[in-house]
């Protein structure tokens, strides 16, 4: 029998960015918050020996243990889904801080266009993509989101500069970036010059890697970035990269009203009479079950798990791709990445860098250019970054170089410090056949079904990918001193094998209407007033940007919604 624990005001499932933000805001307001975290505790102290590519970069030292939980994958409804046995395409986080510990720190606001994508696209182009693409507005506008973005960016001490196209895009800021951009480098200047020759509008990438010493509005301190090159897939040993473990979690702890219970894997949302009553979880060390009663339940785990918990708890209506009915699991989107690598004879300090040290342009992002003659909507940022190349993961070799042997060795050693990549990160729009559901066969270590991912790239993705890939090649060719270029291949079928992006979105979408969304614009579940679901799962589509700024902003909005609900005890909209 499950042991019943003492009731709390609020329980969150997971203690990453969203759980940490919700905990910080609610405890400041006087509520008691408990986070159930399936992983272990970790702090900056854990990362003293982090400069280990083999352990963390290649063998995913900070990521989810797939032997306990993973997803299954197939291309379409007729296929047989098989388990994602080993991490590849995307890297799910683990432990306190979650994926917010191993991110790079790229911190973009989504465009005003993004929040009203259906309305704005239809206004300008009509139903260009047809009904198979399930475009949706998000139920609120950029204007509604601005104050939450501002709050998250101040929490993180974002280093950035005004986007030259901000005014054109309606991307206003109520206050400037908290810190000036990170240092500039020879590699990035080479890209910037070429981009300007192409009449693009480059600006420094907004970074959560603190340039100076910074104290955020919660009184939490960030140290200056050392450009040590171990950001993505790594925790920051200096506490310079903003993460839940050096910002919102210590803030919540300082109130004395926050508790994290580690090794606690939530397996069900409990409910009675149309309300959530708490959650059932397993202590992963003993497999003993507990019931944690709570007045308010907040799903703050990664988007796959948020969707899964709703599905296994039978809350909301599962999306059916054949009928188009149901919203839970609908509008799963991903991201498309493209690029061209340029090779030089001149050497660059490619091995130094920081997770968000870069320069980017939005000329071909959003609806910043006329799509009338194109077979796609939206676009991609075009960028160059100096993240600090690590040698196993990053072995740029020119076109035609063999994969192994004497010629490979020479090319590997020569080109490691002589290559610059011009990349693109593209939007991903929803399609009726891309969705999440429960797998009928495969189970996790706790006996619950794995989440099943039915996904493939669409014609929209392929057309956008080709368009931007060609642009990256044009910029790369223009860089001064370039010897040769190697253009990335155009988009093929989606594969879970190579790493692409941990920017999975959708499945628990937000909106103004329960017919087209799982939660309302305060991230409150339409069917259950005291249940909130927050994360990238709320996105109706994915933009040509990284999701974390929007996830953080939504978490602040969610916290505000929870406080409103706490006073009024009803549906907020």
């Amino acid at each position, binding site marked *: 029998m499950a042991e019943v624990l003492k009731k709390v005001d609020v329980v969150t499932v997971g203690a990453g960015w969203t759980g940490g933000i919700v905990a910080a805001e609610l405890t400041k307001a006087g509520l008691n918050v408990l986070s159930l975290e399936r992983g272990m505790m970790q*702090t900056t102290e854990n990362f003293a020996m982090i400069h280990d590519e083999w352990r963390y970069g290649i063998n995913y030292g900070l990521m989810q243990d797939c032997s306990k939980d993973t997803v299954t994958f197939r291309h379409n409804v007729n296929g047989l889904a098989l388990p994602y046995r080993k991490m590849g395409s995307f890297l799910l986080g683990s432990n306190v801080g979650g994926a917010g510990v191993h991110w790079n720190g790229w911190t973009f606001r989504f465009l005003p266009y993004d929040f009203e994508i259906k309305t704005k696209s239809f206004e300008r182009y009509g139903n260009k993509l047809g009904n198979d693409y399930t475009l949706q507005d998000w139920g609120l506008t950029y204007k509604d989101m601005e104050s939450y973005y501002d709050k998250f960016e101040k929490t993180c001490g974002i280093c950035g500069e005004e986007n030259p196209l901000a005014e054109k895009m309606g991307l206003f800021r109520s206050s400037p970036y908290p810190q000036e951009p990170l240092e500039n480098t020879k590699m990035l200047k080479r890209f910037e010059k070429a981009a300007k020759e192409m009449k693009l509008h480059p600006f420094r990438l907004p970074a959560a890697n603190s340039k100076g010493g910074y104290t955020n509005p919660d009184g939490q301190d960030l140290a200056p970035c050392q450009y040590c090159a171990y950001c993505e897939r790594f925790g920051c040993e200096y506490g310079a990269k903003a993460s839940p473990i050096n910002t919102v979690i210590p803030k919540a702890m300082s109130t004395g009203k926050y508790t994290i219970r580690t090794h606690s894997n939530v397996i069900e949302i409990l409910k009675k009479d149309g309300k959530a009553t708490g959650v059932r979880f397993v*202590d992963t060390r003993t497999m003993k079950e507990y019931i944690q009663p709570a007045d308010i339940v907040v799903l703050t785990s990664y988007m796959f798990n948020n969707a899964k918990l709703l599905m296994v708890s039978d809350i909301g209506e599962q999306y059916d791709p054949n009928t188009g009915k149901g919203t839970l699991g609908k509008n799963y989107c991903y991201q498309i990445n493209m690029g061209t690598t340029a090779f030089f004879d001149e050497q660059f300090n490619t091995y130094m860098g920081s997770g968000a040290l870069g320069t980017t342009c939005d000329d071909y992002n959003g609806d910043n250019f006329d799509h009338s003659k194109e077979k796609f909507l939206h676009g991609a940022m075009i960028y160059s970054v100096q993240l600090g190349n690590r040698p196993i993961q990053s072995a740029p070799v020119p076109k035609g170089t063999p994969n192994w042997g004497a010629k490979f060795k020479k090319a590997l050693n020569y080109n490691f410090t002589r290559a610059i990549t011009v990349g693109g990160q593209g939007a991903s729009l929803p399609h009726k056949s891309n969705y999440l559901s429960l797998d009928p066969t495969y189970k996790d270590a706790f006996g619950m079904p794995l989440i099943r991912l039915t996904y493939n790239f669409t014609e929209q993705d392929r057309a956008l990918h080709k368009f931007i890939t060609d642009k990256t090649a044009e910029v790369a060719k223009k860089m001064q001193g370039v010897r040769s270029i190697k253009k990335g291949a155009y988009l093929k079928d989606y594969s879970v094998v190579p790493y692409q992006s941990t920017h999975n979105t959708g499945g628990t979408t937000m909106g103004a209407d329960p017919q087209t969304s799982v939660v309302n614009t305060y991230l409150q579940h339409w069917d259950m007033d005291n249940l909130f679901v927050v994360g990238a799962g709320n996105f109706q589509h994915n933009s040509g940007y990284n999701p974390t700024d929007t996830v953080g902003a939504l978490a602040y909005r969610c916290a505000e919604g929870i406080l409103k609900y706490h006073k009024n005890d009803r549906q907020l909209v």
Partner: protein
Amino acid sequence: MQDNVIDRRNFFKLSLLSGGVVAVSTISGGAILHATELTHVHKKTQESSNKIRGKMFFQVQTDFDNLSAACERIYPKDEQGEGAIGLGVPYFIDNQLASAYGYNDREYLQGPFIEGIAEQGYQTPMRRNEIFLEGVKALEAISQKRYKKTFSSLKGVEQDKILVDLEKNKIDFIGFKSSEFFTFLRDMTIAGVLSDPIYGGNDNKNGWRMMQYPGAQMSYIDKITSDEFFDIEPMSLADMEG
């Protein structure tokens, strides 16, 4: 108080009193300090090559010799410096096969196992160390069949032909594709050349030196804005011990 319940008192015991964060509070307000003042320092105590080696996985010397020969073809010795054997890569691979990597420790290994499409990734109940062992034994079997000689004694071009056949899926195995074995072999050779020497490969950091990778440096804050290229003596995690 259970040891997995972290409240205010425990959290501050865990984090704020430990090195990094305390130091941070002293630099708020824009000061830029060097990394070493914030946390730990490197001690250059382990400069020499790794002389203590042993086989933890392979039991038969011929298997190990053939593995070594195959790795050397993937990353050969040349005028730049050592190849895979000289860098200790075969020991790196052997040792990894005996540990979490070889046993697919953090991977989903529940059935049913059904061969899917390539985009679904490998779907085999076999552990990587089993695949490696069968793969290496196949090198010998093919070599004996074609040349009546052990694989490690073949000429380089003859060894390459066998490796290419593996890479192109021309060899049949039960439970996995030969290209999957070749990819493991290739990737592990590169990893053994370029991972930190604490894992037994990249002997004396020479794999890094050849590509001018400085390894586990603490900070580049004093160099990041410079246009000059820096060829920095590499540093291992081993240099932080002691």
